């Protein structure tokens, strides 16, 4: 067992536990976008940063990937953590303002302004869909491509993958587009291929814009019959 201190509370956890799991066990809220139980921790969104260590050696690490270490002192909401989280949320709002998840988080963390040039991206490259596809659906149909600002998610050479079963799992987990896929009223969802029995047929270009990897379109497939 490993002994550690989170926000002053002592805790012992099993080897291999992450700081996020330990903190959530004690009930400390830590926001995440790229984390999901059942998928390998990835550490992409950086929202879950916590402060570890003391004095000059104090630093921020992503709690979802950092393994618990003996004697570690963790602060989940220090001013340094909060400052970083607010900036991350501001960056997220600047890139992907239409995501309900991001809007809610920004509101919860009292982010009141967005000072960057506004963009409207449909993906924050959290990689949930990639891991969902690989680890839960055992398909590996999609993955990351490129690096830096050219990084994107898709299939190799944009050719439809043979292993894709159009399960819709990728859209189900997406924090940037989940709203339109799992809308409370499936009929009103933009696509809702996963939940909607009579999906509307959209123009192909629009369909591409939506970061949906279901090719061919579920809607079209259903109509074929």
């Amino acid at each position, binding site marked *: 067992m490993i002994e550690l201190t989170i926000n002053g509370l002592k805790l012992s956890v099993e080897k291999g536990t992450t700081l996020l799991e330990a903190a959530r066990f004690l009930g400390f809220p830590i926001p995440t976008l790229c984390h999901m139980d059942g998928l390998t921790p990835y550490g992409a969104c950086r929202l879950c940063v916590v402060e570890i260590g003391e004095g000059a050696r104090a630093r921020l690490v992503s709690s979802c990937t950092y393994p618990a270490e003996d004697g570690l002192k963790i602060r989940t909401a220090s001013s340094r953590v909060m400052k970083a989280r607010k900036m991350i949320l501001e960056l997220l709002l600047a890139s992907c303002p239409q995501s309900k998840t991001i809007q809610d988080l920004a509101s919860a963390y009292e982010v009141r302004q967005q*000072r960057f040039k506004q963009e409207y991206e449909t993906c924050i490259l959290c990689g949930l869909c990639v891991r969902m596809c690989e680890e839960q659906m055992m398909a590996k149909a999609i993955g990351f491509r490129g690096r830096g600002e050219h990084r994107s998610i898709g299939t190799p050479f944009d050719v439809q993958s043979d292993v894709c079963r159009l399960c819709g799992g990728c859209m189900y987990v997406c924090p940037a587009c989940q709203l339109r896929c799992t809308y409370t009223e499936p009929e009103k969802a933009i696509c809702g291929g996963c939940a909607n029995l009579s999906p509307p047929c959209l123009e192909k270009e629009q369909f591409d814009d939506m970061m949906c990897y279901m090719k061919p379109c579920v809607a079209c497939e259903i109509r074929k019959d």
Partner: protein
Amino acid sequence: MERLKSIDNFKALQRRILSDVNPAIPTIVISAGTCGQASGANDLIRVSKRELLSRRLTDKIRLRITGCQGFCQMEPLVVVQPYGTFYPHVGVKEMSRIVEAVAAGQVLRDLLYVDPETGAIIEKQDDIPFFARQTRTILRGNEKVDPIRIYDYIESGGYSALMDVLARQDPPWVIEQVKASGLRGRGGAGFLTGQKWQMLADQRNGRGKFLVCNGDEGDPGAYMDRSVLEGNPHSIIEGMLIGAYGTGVTSGVIYVRNEYPLAVKHLVIALRQANELGLLGSNILGTGFSFDIQMVKGAGAFVCGEETALIRSVEGKMGEPRQRPPYPVQKGIDGKPTAINNVETWANIPAIFTQGAGEFAKIGTLQNTGTKIFSLVGKVRNTGLVEVPMGITINEIVNTIGGGPAGPARIKAVQTGGPSGGCIPAKMFDLPIDYQSLAQAGSIMGSGGMIVMDENTCMVDVARYFMNFLKDESCGKCFTCRKGTQRMWEILDDITQGKGTASELELLEELALVVKDTTMCGLGQTAANPVLSTLRYFRQEYEHHIREKRCSAFVCKDLVGAPCQSACPLGTEAWRYVAHLARGEYQEAYRVIRETNPFPSVCARVCDHKCESRCRLGTSGSRPVAIRALKRFITDHVDPSVFKAQPRVPTSPDNPRVAIVGSGPAGLTAAHYLSLDGYRVTVFEADQEPGGMLTSGIPAYRLRRDVLQREIESLLDENITLKCNTALGRDFTVDTLFKQGYKAVFLALGAHKSRRLNIEGEDLEGVYPAIHFLKEFNLQGKKLAKGHAGIIGGGNSAVDAARVALRQEGVESVTLFYRRLRHDMPALKEEVDLAIEEGIQLETLVTPVKIESRDGRLTGIQCVRNELGARDASGRRHPVPIRGTEFLRSLDTLVITIGDEPDIDYITSMGIEINERGTLRTDPDTLATSRGGVFAGGDVVTGPNTVVDAIAAGKKAAVMIGRYLRGEEMKPTEPVRVPQVYVAPCGISEEEAGGLRRAEPHTLPIELRKRSFSEVELPLLDEDAQSEAKRCLRCDLEFTEPRASEPELATAGVKTV
């Protein structure tokens, strides 16, 4: 090659190789690394082989093709061993001569290296300052071996360290030695290598472990790993073998960039040879120790230099870092324990075992042992790879080994550690180079890139460049690194385009700190360094860009426009009148000049032409357009009446009155523009003639009196009253001016008091301050100089005083005494050249100590000689007196010209403040003094300065006084000025333009010059002026050229995207 079966086998082979070599036979060493080959080393190899064969010299001369030796600036270079004769920049023809000379045992003196500082010819490589100050442990190896011959490596002592290690059969001893050496990883972070190996050795060896050589060197401008990989691959293999033996590892990986084809080729050959010889593989030399090395080629992602990303890349996955812990030493390639070291670290291992850990630890400092290779590039005279002991100062590397700045501009900063590093300003060059000091200064050691930047480098642009690199090279996994670098670049790009705001600067800093804090790997954590360190040391440059929309380094295109125009304090469109001149439109050209400058003919003669020093033609390697001479040509050829100044407000006796004190260029300019705005101006002049320093300071041979008078008279109109012989403080005060009804006062008093030397005897007869000496002559015609005259100083007034003295009757000789070297003199270089031509003697490196006298009259001066000491922050070397070198020089006249200052002691009693420099305190934006309604400008504010700056101050004062009188807001006015008027180019082909040389004006023959005050410089001839104007690169066209519409382009066959 026979496979060696035991250590004895190897020793026998080594003996055989050594006995085959006759050390008396000279060896021609041709350096043919990537840098050498790019400069033509392959041709040299071909020529020398042919020469050796055709002259049947193959038994008498050895030829060795090596990797890079470090002095890349001098490539292609040839060294003749064992003598160490060094031939730089060898051409094909020279190569044949060298072969011939080596055969005859001669040295070709005409091809040797010439020290650019002293002009001395240096024969031996080790005597060249670039090499002499280095400690070349690793790079020395590059000279000794042909990288594709393992026998060469063995001959130079290679693999002996491995033999010792194998013979000892004590792996823990190996790790102890590395620990004792104190070696730190050379990849950047500086982790102790011995400690890392110990951790690896302590890991359980269930499924195997890995040793990795990280050769993914990606920093722009850094190439030390490449030179070792290319030049001495066996040293890395030997280092890895020793490491593997010590840590009990059986698999090794060399990860090398695919962009280094020569390194890949040499490594493949080296690995094959080591395998064939039995130095790699299983049961090496019968010791039971097995080790295999596999080479992995990186596909070019910068991030793969980060160890966890490198591991994924070796595994065949996408190169992106992961969380540490677990550290690679716990879980690395395929989950097995892995230790990763940089190329240079591995190359240091054989050195440690050859010379002994104790000896190795003696090099460098206590915490930072050994040597480090730096790749010294940028605006420095000697570029190349330098290997120095740790703890040496930046100053020694940049100024001593690097030879100081490459051009006339001063060095401003060095950037260490590549894109993740930071900039260190010149004032901190005493910083020792070690991991801790650099980190404290906000930079990192990194792998050893060192980019030198001078005043022509814009720090905002540098930060933007690196951020552009990082936003492409971030792996993109961490959101804050991917988006953070993009957003930082976006803001920096805005600032360089003049769109930045102060709040954006705050946001930039805030974001940079968050990116540094929240990213996962080393790349992201250091990605903010270029921004943070430039903000820390060069914040004022950011603020210039944002507030004044100025780029002081003249780099940011959107802020600079045409550099000649933005360099001019008046904003004169130099490009425009040069273009008109090239087209033969002289009157148009004159109008352009006169539009911004009320003293065109004066400036055409005495301007310090800031436009020329910023001319792109000049900063890009050629000589700048002779803009001042072209202006002279125009003003000489065009009647000034083609320009009519247009009054904006009609004259009326009811308009407010303004008093201007001083009738120099600042005062008269202000008077002129205020008069155009309808104000009634009275100009008060203390001397008997208007013109200030133009009349009393500048001699007639530089500025013809009739030209000056014509220009002054053209400015005096019915709104302006001139009162000479009326001095402030003597005849009137500021209070009396306001009482007389003046609504505003502009003080343009100039700087008319010469600074004193503060040595004994300054008030003797025959000793004169510069201003007094020049004024007496220029205004009264009094000739004060006689016999042997001496002038102390190196500025423009020193040269003026010297040349005036020379022209006075009864003067036998004139000597200028200056404390530094000739090229350090602040005077215009052309003026100094002319003075020396006229027979003025120049004594440099001397400082006056005492003035000698007899009966109250000067008899001579005692001076002491100086030597040049350490370079100060400006990059100039400081003069230090040499004891015991005092000497006496007999003189009849001595003029002291070490600078002037305003003569304004009385002014505080008028309610106007003076600052600590002894000049008037003003608001730089509005020129307002501490007293309401009183403005000041020119030398009285800046101290002695140029004519053009005084004119600019006068123009600004006119605007500000106008605003003050009309009750408007006193805000600074300096909009972005980029070229706006299109002047069609005169259509000169590139070849034609390339063939043109800068036209220099002719001067009056010496014999006519010596005793007369006729103008020395003659105007350019018609055809010279025309062709000179055509040399202009026309930087303006980028902004003004009308863009052809798409249909037009289509008909012209041009495709638009």
